[in-house]
């Protein structure tokens, strides 16, 4: 019997984003977007306030448009379960600059802690491998986070990592919620100030 998830999601996300340099980040709606915002309100972050199930595919589009940049999709277990087909789509394309991290607390924390399918055994890393991801793994312990951070910033291949985290509710750290602002801010930071004149 595996232990209940115990990692602190805020500490994990802070560690993963350390030394992020020009990493592009798409954060799935809910707690994961708040985690990313708790580290910094960064212009190369695109936090989603809706579009549930779409985070990984936003990441694929970004990864194809910017093949020289690393793109991190960081999202929750509920969000990725809603877009599970996108794992097959992404594996078929195998973009080497895309990485998907799933913060898996085994519940829908935003809506009252109802259990997700991962609480009953759905294994998102195994699903990714079965879809054709070249690498996927599940981390449960603190000493697995630094190697994962290195892979996010350095590995030249597609991968997915599930991190089992405690279903603790942290104080909200909200990113800007104006979508047009988030769009223009990311494009200006990534493509240069002329991007908003296009």
């Amino acid at each position, binding site marked *: 019997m595996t232990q209940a998830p115990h990692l602190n999601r805020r500490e994990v996300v802070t560690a993963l984003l350390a030394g992020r340099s020009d990493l592009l980040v798409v954060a799935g709606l809910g707690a994961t977007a708040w985690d990313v915002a708790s580290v910094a309100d960064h212009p190369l972050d695109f936090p989603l306030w*809706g*579009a549930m*199930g*779409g985070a990984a*595919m936003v990441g694929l*589009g970004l990864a*194809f448009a910017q093949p020289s940049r690393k793109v991190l999709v960081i999202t929750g277990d509920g969000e990725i379960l809603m*877009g599970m087909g996108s794992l097959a789509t992404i594996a078929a*394309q195998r973009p080497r600059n895309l990485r998907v991290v799933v913060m898996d607390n085994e519940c829908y924390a935003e809506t009252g802690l109802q259990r997700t399918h991962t609480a009953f055994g759905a294994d998102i890393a195994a699903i990714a491998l079965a879809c054709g991801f070249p690498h996927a793994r599940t981390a449960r312990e603190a000493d697995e986070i630094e190697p994962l951070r290195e892979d996010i910033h350095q590995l030249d291949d597609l991968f997915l990592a599930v991190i089992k985290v405690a279903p603790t509710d942290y104080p909200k750290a909200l990113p800007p919620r104006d979508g047009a602002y988030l769009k223009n801010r990311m494009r200006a930071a990534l493509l240069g100030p002329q991007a908003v004149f296009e």
Partner: protein
Amino acid sequence: MRQNRSDLARHWAHDIYEVFRAQGVSMVSYVPDAGHVDLIKLCEADDRMRAVSLTSEEEGVAFAAGAYLGGKRAALLMQSSGVGNCINMLSLIKTCQLPFLTLVTMRGEFGEFNPWQIPMGQATPVVLSAIGLIVYRVDAPNEVRDVLEAAVSLAFGSYCGVAVLLSQRLIGTKRFVEEK
């Protein structure tokens, strides 16, 4: 007199492809439909374009959003039956004022044989409008190029979502029994 539908289809698919090339649409994502077969082939044969097969249509909405954030233009190709799958994801387009272009091959309308296509086909223009897209419709092959050019300009020039419905009359009604 039966028209030669395959010749017509080849003609307007080329028009769409040429507008994509001229206006910098360099990625397409799709759930295949018989009406899109020539366009998909043209895009897949061009190594300057990227064609991405999807498991479900809403993936293509999110994909186009990401492509635009990264400075590229993408279009979503689908059949009308896939439109319903996209509705909540299209809130991304409206909320973020993202340019978005989708080409929808229509079923469930002109001369449809399959009753299961009717509900989504008839709902397609209504629900696309309801979620905030501007909807164009093409019935004749000689209108395809003009409408596509306008749709691309509108979407990427005015930061909005545009759907071009390629009507069943344009594509040719699917036949399950060959005519004698």
